[in-house]
């Protein structure tokens, strides 16, 4: 029965894809919304990076949804990993460096990655990049020491604090607009001069919130997984 339905489904899907491949023509896609955004984004939102004006301006609610998805995934993962994730006793027992080269280069890279991540987040409304990309780099910065120095623990309380407040900040900025009589997530403040660091209203604030949220989320998730693997290693001994 299961094989039959699988066959039916695959056949149907293949047919569907064939229809699409047969009918689809490239190169003449209508640009309704795209053209409207290209024409008006700079005037309406004031961000030099047009992608940012879509991500945080026109479709801010989708971005809120995306960070909620990331948060849900992290929460669900820690639900599955469960009790392992929250016990730090074993991690404090031994901290050893896997060689001095690894240790020194981590100490060298950590501030560099931190600076790069923060730069990309803060300039999200000016240059390609932004909260999601910068946040991933931040998470990388905090995860490197865990890789180089096994057994080292990460500050779960601090991560939870950043995670909670940065997510809340995004929503609170949106709610501030709502309670001042505008729409939810409507950009606040003046646009300023296009291309300046302090421009595009509240968009940079939103991107900082996104960046910190993504960074905290991913480093928490990686730390959980690292905790599991070091537990497993100890259990093997």
């Amino acid at each position, binding site marked *: 029965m299961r094989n039959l339905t699988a066959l039916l489904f695959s056949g149907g899907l293949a047919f569907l894809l064939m229809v699409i491949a047969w009918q689809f023509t490239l190169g003449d896609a209508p640009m309704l919304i795209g053209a409207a955004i290209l024409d008006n984004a700079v005037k309406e939102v004031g961000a030099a990076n047009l992608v940012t004006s879509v991500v945080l301006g026109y479709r801010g609610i989708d971005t809120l949804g995306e960070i*909620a998805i990331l948060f*849900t995934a992290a*929460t669900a993962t820690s639900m599955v990993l469960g009790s392992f994730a929250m016990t730090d006793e074993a991690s404090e027992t031994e901290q050893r460096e896997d060689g001095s080269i690894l240790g020194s280069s981590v100490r060298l890279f950590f501030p560099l990655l931190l600076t790069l991540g923060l730069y990309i987040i803060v300039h999200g409304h000016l240059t390609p990049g932004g909260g999601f990309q910068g946040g991933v780099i931040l998470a990388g910065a905090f995860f490197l020491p865990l890789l180089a120095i096994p057994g080292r623990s990460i500050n779960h309380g601090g991560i939870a604090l950043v995670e909670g407040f940065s997510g809340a900040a995004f929503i609170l900025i949106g709610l501030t607009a709502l309670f001042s009589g505008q729409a939810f*997530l409507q*950009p606040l403040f003046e646009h300023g001069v296009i291309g300046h660091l302090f421009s595009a209203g509240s968009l940079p604030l939103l991107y900082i919130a996104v960046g910190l949220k993504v960074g905290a989320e991913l480093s928490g998730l990686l730390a959980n997984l690292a905790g599991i693997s070091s537990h497993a290693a100890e259990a093997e001994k």
Partner: protein
Amino acid sequence: MNSIVLNIALPLLVAFLLPLIHASSRIAARITGPLVLMVMMWSAVIVFKALEYPVSIALGGFLPPVGVSFHLDQLALLMATIIPLLMLLLWPYQYEQNLREQTVLLLLAAASSGLALSGDLFNIYVFYELISVASFGLAAANRQASSFAAAFRYLLISGLGTVLALTGIALIYTQTGTLNLAQLGLLSSRLDNPLGLSAFALILLGIGVKAEIFPLNGWVAEVYSTASTRTSALLAGLVSKLAVLAIVRILVVAYDDSEAGLMLLVFGVLGIIWGEFSAWRAQDLKRMFAYSSIGQLGMILLAFSIPGEAGMFAGIAMMLHHLVVKPALFLLTEKWNHGTDSLRGAARLSPLAAALFVLFALSLIGVPPLPGFWAKMLLMSGLVGMDTSVYYIALAVLMIATVVEAQYLIRIAVTLYSASDRSSELRLASNTGVMSLFAVVLLSALLTLTPLGSKLYHIAAESSNRALYIRTTFNVNPTPVLEHKNATQEASL
């Protein structure tokens, strides 16, 4: 009207902060979740009461079609009220180690409200994805090997569905250049071709994973029989309905007068056949309910495939009926033994639980005068009203499926009341309080059938009116008048 975004913002805000609240005060963390759900209900009811005609709100202050818009009509607000209500009933009050589960439930509440309200294709996708991820967590929350395996398979199937849905949405975007549902309604002629229909099929299959649609429902029986009862009740009762609703919105607004409705009919009929016959063969009680839920959702899809008000009316009635009865059945049988044979003679020791089971089962089958009969009657008269051979075939399948459904549900009822050969100590231990509440809802629906019916008809007429939807979004003289077929031209950009 703008305050309805609180139904999304507030649960998200609290979900983000819940671990911190928990760290500072456990008692505060325990009461915050239910409190938020109550506020959500209150906010939805207030907007519902103030609503005279559908309203569209622009998020971020950018007017549709460029910005994302929410479409507030009676159907959306009805769902927005039901979501926190059902979650309050199914909230994990009694367990200690459930902080993460509460967090995920709040996220699910936010995403469900968003899905009910959204009027933008990609926004629908985002909230649908959030619902998916939250339900993976809930499916695995039991922390047993079997539920992990079920959750993993669910994740794979659902992931496939997500890819299909996103492909469909991208296809629609390449053909029309827009994602706003109302603008898609204006451009629906561009979608009335093989490519547009393929896009609808992809979205139907993709979002249909949650609606337990025919080929992609392999996860249903496994997840419902391994996950906690509350999760099964939420997924079968609420999430599946929201997925159906999202599909119906797209169908009504963007695929008016096209063959897309027939697609819904075919998948509905296949779902009915597969679900009911699998339920008939099932020996395990929870699996039986899971399969019967597939069949019921097939019927709901079938109802929505009937074009116009009649189909919408029947669909909403079937949907609400299933939304009350299926969670109630899952909760009622929570502690019952899985094997159906072991229930022999249990009614003697637990008469109330057995009586409630019979009540819900009879309503599910559609025995007059229970509300289930009324809903099924609407569906059948809708099918007859179409007067086309395809719909008559669907009607015949529906009749046969109802007989099958009656056979397996009555089989259990008879087992419950049959004389036991051994001195059975079996009690149908369960908390009958909440279930009695569901029964009261069901019976009071029976008593107020006439006003309820006319209210539902009004809701159905409003949400099956494509021109009204389009005019509301572009804010062209929204009036409560229902028939304006030429509004499509008025609202042109």
